[in-house]
């Protein structure tokens, strides 16, 4: 008789732990009557790292599936809209050098690749502005929807900027009150294993032994279960991505009703970049840099220069980043999610989306019993390795397209030794054909789709050859779509409210569920 897998134990109560608990509990909620359980063990003392402030639109469906009203999410976590990222000074380093990586797909993306058409005649417009309205919406400080748009629905595709220190406790309340997740506040002292290496139970200081069938390691950098107990090694990627330290601050607005931007602003520096995220109550700003190329004092100075003279007394938090990921993510009956699985600089907000994708995969593929777990684990490892590889490629793309030569940091980023082979091949290929649909971006849930590559490549001045007759057949459709984009942009700029105003209205009146 095969014992069914009934008890999932998550260790760690940060964003990764609670998001994973919520996604699994929502998906398997009806099984709880038959004995299925989700337990989350959280140390009463450990502080949440809380680096993830940027998310992807996937979080909307994750929250919706967990049964969270979006209004409540905005009100209780101080969340804001995110409509993409604006990259300043990454290409040439000049004052006016900037491009958008928006969250909307280019017009007609499933029917036609507009890149060659734009390349043939740019009409004096950036790629982003030629194919989607979102860059203009961000420039105008507009929200991605109106107060009459139902919860989780968008006029312009959006994700969230959030306060991780409020997000995890919010998820905790929802998971325990609505989804039947058992919350245990206790310190794990010993991890007890079977002879096979499987984890049998955890001995805690406050709550005795806690047994389980599947253990999810959300213990952050510590990787208590997968790293320390099961001895899985760490694959360091600092030879590809050089940034290894972040200095983070929270900056208040000049006035409570000051405009709030809905794009993450990423401004390149001489040995890294500065993020700038608008939340309703404050901005989150941080300098991510390579300590090989810049001292902490210099990094601090650049950060203060960015913030300006009025806020020099803010508390600066230093966060070490060791770029890389685990050699295996799921071993025996233990799988790591979140920082325990790996960590990269927050350049494209990949941390939370990876947690969602991992939790979803675990949840959808939840092994029926221990016998089949290794099969699921192998698939999970294969997919997750692929994802980390693609994220690293995509982050590196931002560095290899630079024309900056003003510091060793930027020059060394172009060193072929530091560029993954796959990315090198793609860059070679893209000289002759632009990334699009029937590309090798064939995975069902690609973290960064071909559209993201298009926005970064052509935002940073990359050029793909276009033959004289290449566009002839699709020219009428392309012209029509680009014309429609102009009309749509104009309409949206008139119809959409200011980002700050919509957030205020959501707090005041709420959004409707339909």
């Amino acid at each position, binding site marked *: 008789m095969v014992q069914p897998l009934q008890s999932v134990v998550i260790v760690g109560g940060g964003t990764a732990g609670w998001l994973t608990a919520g996604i699994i509990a929502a998906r398997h909620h009806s099984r709880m009557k038959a004995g299925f359980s989700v337990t989350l063990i959280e140390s009463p003392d450990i502080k949440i790292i809380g680096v993830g402030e940027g998310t992807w639109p996937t979080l909307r469906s994750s929250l919706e599936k967990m049964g969270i009203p979006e209004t409540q999410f905005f009100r209780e976590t101080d969340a804001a809209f995110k409509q993409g990222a604006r990259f300043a000074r990454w290409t040439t380093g000049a004052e006016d050098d900037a491009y958008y990586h928006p969250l909307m797909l280019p017009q007609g993306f499933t029917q036609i690749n507009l890149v060659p058409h734009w390349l043939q005649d740019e009409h004096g417009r950036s790629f982003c502005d030629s194919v989607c309205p979102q860059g203009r919406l961000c420039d105008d400080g507009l929200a991605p929807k109106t107060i*009459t748009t139902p919860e989780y629905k968008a006029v312009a595709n959006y994700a969230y900027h959030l306060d991780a220190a409020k997000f995890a406790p919010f998820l905790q309340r929802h998971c325990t009150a609505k989804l039947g997740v058992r919350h245990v506040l206790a310190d794990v002292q010993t991890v007890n294993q079977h002879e096979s290496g499987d984890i049998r139970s955890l001995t805690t200081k406050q709550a005795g032994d806690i047994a389980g069938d599947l253990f999810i390691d959300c213990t952050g950098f510590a990787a208590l279960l997968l790293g320390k107990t099961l001895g899985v090694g760490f694959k360091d990627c600092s030879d590809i991505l050089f940034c290894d330290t972040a200095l983070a601050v929270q900056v208040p607005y000049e006035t409570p009703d000051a405009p709030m931007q809905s794009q993450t602003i990423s401004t390149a520096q001489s040995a890294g970049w500065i993020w700038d995220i608008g939340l309703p109550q404050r901005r989150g700003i941080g300098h991510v840099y390579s300590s090989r190329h810049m001292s902490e004092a210099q990094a601090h100075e650049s950060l203060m220069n960015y913030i300006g003279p009025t806020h020099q007394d803010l508390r600066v938090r230093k966060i070490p980043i060791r770029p890389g990921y685990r050699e295996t993510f799921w071993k025996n009956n233990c799988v790591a999610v979140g920082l325990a699985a790996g960590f990269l600089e927050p350049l494209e907000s990949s941390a939370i989306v990876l947690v969602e994708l991992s939790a979803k995969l675990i949840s959808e593929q939840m092994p029926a019993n221990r016998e089949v777990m290794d099969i699921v684990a192998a698939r999970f490892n294969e997919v997750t390795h692929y994802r980390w590889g693609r994220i690293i490629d995509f982050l590196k793309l931002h560095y290899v397209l630079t024309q900056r030569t003003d510091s060793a940091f930027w020059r060394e980023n172009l060193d072929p030794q530091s560029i993954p082979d796959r990315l090198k091949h793609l860059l070679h290929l893209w000289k002759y054909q632009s990334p699009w649909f029937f590309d090798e971006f064939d995975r069902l849930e690609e973290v960064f789709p071909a559209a993201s590559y298009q926005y970064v490549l052509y935002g940073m001045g990359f050029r793909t050859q276009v033959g004289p007759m290449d566009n002839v057949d699709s020219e009428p459709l392309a012209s029509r779509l680009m014309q429609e984009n102009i009309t749509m942009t104009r309409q949206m700029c008139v119809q959409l409210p200011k980002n700050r105003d919509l957030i205020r209205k959501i707090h005041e009146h*709420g959004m*409707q569920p339909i």
Partner: protein
Amino acid sequence: MTNIVPLNSLIHRSLRVYGAASARYGDNQRFVQVVVAEFPQLVLHYPILLSKDADTGVFFCGAVLGFERDENLFLKEGEGHEGYRPLDLQRMPFYSAGSDLAIDLDHPRVGAESGQALFTESGQPTNYLAGIMHAFRDIKPGLEMTKVFIATLLQHKLIEPVDISVSFDDGSTHNLADLYTINQSVLRDLPDQTVLDLFRRGYLRLIYLMIASLKQVQELAKKKNARMLRGSESLSARVG
């Protein structure tokens, strides 16, 4: 602009207000906010639907009186309002201010030559004003009751968007956008206990009045057709 002040029998003793239905004075509305107490009368003439306040996104109940902006197909200039005139039109230019009545002195109805007096010489409310006061006895609690009714509909996921597209005899079509109605499949699947609860609270009746009122869309279209026909006839008559 509005200039809303509390109504005062001394200050406003000689004020005259034009109270009858008139497009010129603001009855030209295609969608009028209504309260649940009006449903039994509204259902005889108008589709009763829900819409969202553009400024707050909050749902409210309304009656459809026309298809185009400023079009009230039940208005006949000089002949008043055909059928039941919704309270929200009746009350113009009055507002409630706490337990008192207030008036918008800048409203074109106020001070009109042919207006009606509000007070008798001895300072008693005229029949006209008494009627307005009576209307507000329905409107004020009515708005609150309607709010609770809508919240109950939302709670049970009984609201769904509806696309109303009407074709007219001249070949044109018109879409009524941003409107919502009762989700009948959700209604059918409600658990018995919920149905009983809705019945006891009087909501089941309101729900069925809303569903029944959808039939009025066709009647409304007929009215519009007839009006367009008359318009084209008089046009051809003039040309002739």
